[in-house]
């Protein structure tokens, strides 16, 4: 039995610290750059342009029709998939080195190790919300607006929980197994192409050498989140209850995993670094 000298570590109790870490990340990210905040839009726009060019023009990938019935436009459809993916990608890759970066601090003063990670994810979320606004503007420009947009917060909540939990889990495990950062980079690349972002789920053969390929791809949680957002924002349709349940289940599962990993390895970060 041991009792520590630490105050109760609930996320709520440390909200002020988490927000401070988020502000710190936001402030230092584009410090000293000429374009400043504009950079947070340059990277996704460049990605959008590249993929639009390669897949939309070279490969003649086509987008499904807008929710309003108008013919679809590939870059807009792609953007609706890239924004949530980018949130996941950047949140995971930037938070993984966060604990190491705060090592000196964690060894000198106590604060729960989840605080800097949650702060980092929150900073990314702020950027992502700007990207979502951009998406909304573009969609509105095409006249593709619907009441289903009002359900966006309901979609965002489980997604943020899911992304944050994955980021926290990987960050903590990374302290003990440094290979994980490299492994994650490889896995993320693979996952990007295994998620229907630049292609529609329907292009995947239902069966491939006896494997139910399409169903397997669909199983991946990111396919669920990206698909649901496209339904809401682009198709202007409400996802069925099974999909909502799926989104919440992934979020809950990831949160439970993060909780146990944190309890198992996240409490002694100060010595492990």
């Amino acid at each position, binding site marked *: *039995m*041991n*009792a*520590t*000298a*630490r*105050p109760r570590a609930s996320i709520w*109790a*440390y909200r*002020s*610290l988490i*927000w*401070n*870490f988020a*502000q*710190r990340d936001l*402030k*230092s990210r584009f*410090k000293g750059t000429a374009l400043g905040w504009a950079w947070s839009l340059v990277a996704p726009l460049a990605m959008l342009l590249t993929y639009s060019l390669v897949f939309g023009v070279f490969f003649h990938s086509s987008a499904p029709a807008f929710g309003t019935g108008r013919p679809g436009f590939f870059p807009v459809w792609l953007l609706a998939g890239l924004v949530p993916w980018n949130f996941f990608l950047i949140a995971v890759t930037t938070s993984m080195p966060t604990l190491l970066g705060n090592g*000196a*601090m*964690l*060894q*000198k*003063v*106590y*604060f729960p190790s989840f605080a800097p990670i949650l702060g980092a994810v929150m900073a990314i979320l702020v950027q992502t919300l700007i990207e979502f606004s951009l998406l909304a503007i573009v969609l509105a420009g095409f006249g593709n607006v619907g009441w289903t947009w009002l359900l966006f917060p309901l979609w965002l909540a489980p997604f943020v929980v899911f992304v944050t939990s994955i980021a926290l889990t990987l960050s903590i495990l990374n302290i*003990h*197994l*440094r*290979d994980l950062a490299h*492994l994650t980079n490889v896995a993320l690349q693979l996952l990007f192409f295994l998620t229907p972002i630049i292609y529609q789920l329907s292009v995947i053969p239902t069966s491939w050498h006896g494997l139910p390929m399409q169903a397997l791809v669909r199983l991946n949680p990111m396919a669920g989140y990206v698909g649901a957002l496209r339904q809401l924002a682009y198709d202007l349709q409400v996802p069925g209850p099974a999909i909502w349940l799926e989104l919440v289940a992934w979020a809950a599962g990831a949160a439970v995993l993060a909780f146990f990993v944190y309890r198992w390895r996240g*409490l*002694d970060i*100060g*010595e492990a670094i």
Partner: protein
Amino acid sequence: MTEYAVRAEGLSKRFWLHGERHTSLKQRVVRGKLPKGREFWALRDASFDIERGTTFGLIGQNGSGKSTTLKVLAGIYRPTSGKVVVAGRVSALLELGAGFHGDLTGRQNIRLNGAILGLSGRQVSAAMDKIEDFAGIGEFIDLPVKIYSSGMFVRLGFAIAVSLDPDILMVDEVIAVGDVEFQRKCFDHLFDLRKRGTTIVLVTHSLSLIRDMCDRAMWLDHGRIRQLGPAAEVGDAYLADVNEREMHAIHVAEGQLPAPSASTRLGSGEVRITSLEFLDADSRATPVLLAGAPCTIRMHYIAHEPIRHIIFGIRFMHESGAIVAEPNSGRLGTWSVEAGEGYVDLVIDELPLQPATYQVSTTIVDRGHIFDSADREFDLHVRGHGYQEPGLTRMPGVWREPVAGTGAATVPGAIQEDVRAKQ
């Protein structure tokens, strides 16, 4: 009923010492389960309480577990076993400016640090002026801390730690930095905090700090509590132990090297001081001399040949660097010594030094020629008892009752005029 700020019961902390700490996947696959490494108990079964509003000192040699204890109390480490209860908000000053982020301005760092200590934005705003004022770094407060000088870093760090009104302040020897003026400011502030009822836990090597500031102290030795009690008692016991060990070390060294190695000494070396011994009023060797009491300082020497015309000198330097006294035997003319070992005594009726640790240098000279010079090689610990006056030395003198009048009668008229003219 006594209120406790800290209650620790059977506190232990174990570390695993690995050769290679960062474990890669390859290692895990190739070697199977990780070798656990050698275990090391930094703290073993320590039970102690710290009363609310008192100052608690932690002493011990390097590696005795002081800092580990502090880190466990501050919550940075979890104890391997045992229990610790800390009542109140803890602010730990383990390393100044450790919680700073280079790209943020001083002000933004204050906010971040306040949040780490669990303060709300409003509470930090309320303390902002006080911190700015205490740090005294002017407009640098709005510039990124990466351009700060190390002094400014220290000032801001200390200002933050003490201004955010912690219930318990933990300090790890960090105050020994910064300029003298700032150091004084820090100590004044610590005294002030103590007066206001803040519980302070202090890790230090300065025994005078233990005596001056702490109510109780804990002496740690290889992770275990050696002694726990009133600060002065524990400090003296620790000092006695250190001196004994030092003495032992000197004896061992002497056994191996008949004369102190010339490399660390100046002078031609025909005769050298081998050791200093401090004797109390009863002529017993003691590690600590009592301020104002009779004592003898015995300088042991070894001469490799008979030498004529020598003068012994000894210099006392205060912790602050001031040379307090530098008596020598030259007043009595010069002496001669035979080959072999011997000693010279400096007999003092009333030791005029105030409680502190003095660095002692010795010299053996002959009008410009230096035989031996041991620069700050010895330490003299002076302890006080009863009322202590501030200052470096005890001014001998007797106070008389106040007397009415100008007292001018005793001053010759001409001189008095002169004094007036100058005023």
